[in-house]
């Protein structure tokens, strides 16, 4: 199945692309996708970065299983820092 990944801010700069269409296995989670992307774009592995995850414009947990045509965004810390407790 196919998912669309959008990259913003530091992740966009480090990957050198703003959008990636990725073929992944059925049953793959957001965390699985992140692991695959870090292989494709090694610079995405920012040391110490804490990410949040969104699928189809809603915050989700990293174990969320993906569906065909999902839009996935890995969210680096937003402008004032991040309240991880709220979403994970």
């Amino acid at each position: 199945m196919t998912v669309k990944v959008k990259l913003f801010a530091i992740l966009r700069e480090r990957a050198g692309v703003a959008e990636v269409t990725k073929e992944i296995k059925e049953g793959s989670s957001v965390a699985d996708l992140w692991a695959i992307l870090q292989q494709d774009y090694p610079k995405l592995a920012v040391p110490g970065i804490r990410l949040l995850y969104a699928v189809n414009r809603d915050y989700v947990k990293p174990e969320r299983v993906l569906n065909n045509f999902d839009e996935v965004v890995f969210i680096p810390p937003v402008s004032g820092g991040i309240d991880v407790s709220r979403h994970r």
Partner: protein
Amino acid sequence: MFRVTDKPINLQELVDCVTDPEAGAVATFIGITRNNNEGRKVIALDYEAYPEMAEKELTRLSEEARTKWQICRMAIVHRVGPVQITEPSVVIAVSAAHREAAFAACRFAIEEIKKTVPIWKKEVYEGGEIWIGTQSGQPLNRS
């Protein structure tokens, strides 16, 4: 009105948007680009948003504010792209029957924006640039 824009923000437009016959108070907050941060001389800020989700999260936080305080209306506009020193990067307006609710909801909105709304801030300073929150950036190798 909940949106991101690459144009200068018009404060009066937000005030007009939240003006309501039942409101006795309008509180506003203006976040402005300042010329220094943590000892660095800041030249400009450059904001980037995931616009569809940012606008959705702004709407969501206004609904959450509504469950906490008796407010009439709320409007939030956030800049994207380069924002020069002294220019507003975010403006919030809240109307309520009474000032306590208007002030409280306005404060809540700016604190939430900085935690949950997918808008990122790159600080361009003398000698480099940095994505705020990641403490990761690149020194400019200008000769």
